[in-house]
């Protein structure tokens, strides 16, 4: 009986994976379809990839997204790591944890219009910088959460030992604490980067005239339903983000640990 049940679970798992990956696979296959129509197979071709390279708006949008994600990652990694250590070491409060975590839970549209109202009130010029400010708000929280799971494994006695040996707090932090939690920090940074580069709603509301980011451009392409170039874009994005996240996972997970805290933190 137990065997039958485990078999039905296995079938369920198989179907679930089909559900998760079929749409992605279809897009990747279609990206090599020579036909303009998504429903007709017109032979193998790389023409959409070639067209993509010549698409200036898209390239500019990718550049903007990389700039934004770069700044966001740097700022939120610093702020988030400090926050994580601070929460772990100095204030142990569930309430504070939950309250601080709100930007990651609140529906993105609320954060988006809140920030837009705020920037509008202060007469901020909207542009890449406002997107950076907005993304750091929630990315910082994700970094903090990820670094904290790593801090949980860290034995503070090593720090005390370093202090006993005469290292000052900065030295202790740089030479002992940071190396120990570095995989968590890097994983946090990678997650922050991925979240920022894919973020649409908040960027859509808080972008300026010429600060079109990659998702904003993709949205316009989908809305205008232009060409299968979008499939080629999809294939590349899928591949790149899969790679990034695989690296992040390798880094958060030293041997022999449980599987908690994989990327998304509960």
């Amino acid at each position, binding site marked *: 009986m137990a065997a039958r049940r485990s078999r039905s679970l296995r079938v369920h798992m198989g179907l679930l994976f089909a559900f998760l990956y079929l749409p992605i696979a279809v897009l990747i296959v279609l990206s090599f379809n020579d036909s303009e129509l998504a429903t007709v197979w017109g032979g193998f071709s790389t023409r959409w990839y070639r067209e993509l390279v010549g698409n200036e708006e898209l390239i500019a949008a990718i550049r903007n997204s990389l700039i934004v994600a770069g700044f966001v990652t740097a700022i939120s990694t610093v702020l988030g790591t400090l926050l994580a250590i601070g929460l772990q070491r100095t*204030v142990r409060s569930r309430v504070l944890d939950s309250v601080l975590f709100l930007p990651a839970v609140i529906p993105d549209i609320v954060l988006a219009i809140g920030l837009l109202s705020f920037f509008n009130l202060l007469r901020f010029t909207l542009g890449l910088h406002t997107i950076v400010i907005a993304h750091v708000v929630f990315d910082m929280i994700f970094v903090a959460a990820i670094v904290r799971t790593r801090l949980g494994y860290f034995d503070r006695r090593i720090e005390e030992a370093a202090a006993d040996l005469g290292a000052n707090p900065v030295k202790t932090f740089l030479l002992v604490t940071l190396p120990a939690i570095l995989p968590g920090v890097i994983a946090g940074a990678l997650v922050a980067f991925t979240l920022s580069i894919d973020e649409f709603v908040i960027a859509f509301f808080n972008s300026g005239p010429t600060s079109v980011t990659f998702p904003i451009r993709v949205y316009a392409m989908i809305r205008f339903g232009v060409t299968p170039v979008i499939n080629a874009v999809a294939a590349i994005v899928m591949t790149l983000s899969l790679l990034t996240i695989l690296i992040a996972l390798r880094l958060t997970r030293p041997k022999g640990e449980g599987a908690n805290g994989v990327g998304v933190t509960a």
Partner: protein
Amino acid sequence: MSVAAARTRRAHGRRVWGQRFVLLGPGMTYWLVFFLVPVGVLIAYSFFRRGPYGGVIYEPTLKNYARALDPLYIGVLWTSVRIATVATAVSLLLAYPAALFIARASSRWRVPLLVLVILPFWTSFLIRTYAWMVLLNPAGLINKLLQGLGLVDEPLPLLYNEFAVTLGLVYAYLPLMVLPIYASLERLGPQTGEASADLYASPAQTLRKVTIPLTLPGIVAGCIFVFVPSLGNFIVPDLLGGGRTVMIGNVIQQQFLQARDWPFGAVLAMSVIVLMFVVLAVQAQVLRRTQEVEDGRPA
């Protein structure tokens, strides 16, 4: 000795405050300025009058709230809650067996399986939604397949309706349901099930009476991770609903970007925030209940 100890303690106290300042200061300041204040501005806007062509006139009014009580907007809110609830329920039904399967897999396979479940979540949200536009299209793959197999004569209307929106939300947030459930199953360990089996409980009984109640915190967390973002979503209804299925996120977006009625958009956003807190309160309640049950039982 006591003097020295007191001095150390004082020094220690100072250090702790210094540490707090350095470690928490930057992040919390940022949080206050760019999260709390903007949400505060939004709340404030909800009590003012709209300008004729957008913007806000600073005359206090409750009219926006009165307007939100119109059956029209209550209806949209209800539709959103309904769609988000169905999407959450479907995700739970899909995710629980999957999490169970992964938790029972040999330790070698657990991580790769989990990674495979999460991977799609980290690829572009827009593009994943777009994939369903391609698949569900009347001339799309699924309809072609159904027609080719002779199952249907006419293409089924799969796209641009509530079904498509619900499916899109399930697809988007399913991994967020699997993760916390898996985490709670793993915490539970296999021993609980064995103990139950020793007491001659059938596997089904074990699942219903032991496993599910004890993994309730994971289930509730997963439900929140799916329900809250589904509730405020406007991209999925926009792309897969064809403008015919509207959720509260779409109306908020319309108020801000099209009707240019920011105060009213702010009121609608308030309704989302309130619903979010209701859901979080339910979670806290469930967590407390589970904690009591766990503590109450003799070990």
